[in-house]
């Protein structure tokens, strides 16, 4: 077990333990949050590490302090990623790794702590879809296997719908869609 003594060492310590899936997952999430400059989470992450506690335990603690909806969503992604080949009885492969990473990044980039929990489902041939129903509005985000494009579907209160595409690096479109889901 590796001990950490200062917050600045957290990333390095977790990076050294990449063999452990939990630590690796946390590292990816942490790196993304850090890049996004998410003050609430990064502030917490910077202050939480406890001297003498191993990196694996730190990772578990970090996940435990994420918003409930995000923790549940990340668990759903992990569960989908663990599905074996032919998970749908139609010969589909397991979740594509790029799609998995993009799903985690997308979810972690949502800046609302009290966001409605999504339903997350795999798509045949390796993709993944994140779905919300909120106040009679619906939003679907489809992460295409092996791609950094996201397909979206907005369904308004009157059941009219519109669809489109945006890039994973286009945070403006994503935030606009999420804001629409919350307040219309």
């Amino acid at each position, binding site marked *: 077990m590796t001990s950490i003594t200062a917050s600045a060492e957290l990333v390095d310590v977790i990076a050294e333990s990449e063999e452990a899936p939990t630590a690796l997952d946390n590292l990816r999430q942490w790196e993304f949050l850090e890049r996004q400059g998410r003050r609430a989470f990064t502030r917490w992450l910077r202050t939480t590490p406890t001297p003498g506690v191993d990196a694996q335990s730190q990772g578990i603690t970090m996940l435990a302090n994420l918003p409930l909806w995000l923790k549940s969503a990340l668990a*759903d992604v992990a*569960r*989908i990623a663990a*599905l074996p080949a032919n*998970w*749908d*009885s*139609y010969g589909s492969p397991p979740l594509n790794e790029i799609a998995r990473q993009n799903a985690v990044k997308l979810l972690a980039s949502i800046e609302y702590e009290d966001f409605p929990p999504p*339903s*997350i*489902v*795999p*798509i*045949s*041939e*390796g*993709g993944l*879809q994140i*779905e919300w*129903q909120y106040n*009679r509005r619906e939003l*679907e985000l*489809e992460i*295409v*296997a092996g791609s950094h494009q996201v*397909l*979206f*579907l907005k*369904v308004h209160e009157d*059941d009219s*719908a*519109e*669809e489109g595409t945006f890039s994973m690096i286009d945070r403006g479109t994503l935030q606009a869609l999420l804001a629409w889901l919350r307040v219309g």
Partner: protein
Amino acid sequence: MDESNAQWVDDHTIPDSEGLWRRIPPSVSYIAPDAKTNTWRPSSGVFIDQRGELSVNRASLTMVEQTLAGTQGYSLVEVKAEVFRARGYAVVADPLPENPAHALVCGKISKIHAREITRAATWIVLHLPDAATDTRVI
């Protein structure tokens, strides 16, 4: 429909009224309550296949027990062939040695269409989430 899939030729020996069955695995949250209709509905993800070839079984050539053979806890949903055709997708017979009822819906199904297809779907077997023993055969 994605124009790149226009090479598929619809098989008109399959009537519009043919029920096309799609299995829904129990391992993921494909079935959710629809707040607008107060019914259980499948996720539109059930009808999205990123290859543009959605496997289905022709209802007239199979039975529930055959289609669900070897699976456990699966639900089964039906969509009429005409629902796909009306949106520009081809329905093609694709019999397999072990499954003569197999067919394909060809063309990448758009998100709007997937949602419309979901609304047109009817349950043949419904395993409600978190209630594996509560099976409704319709």
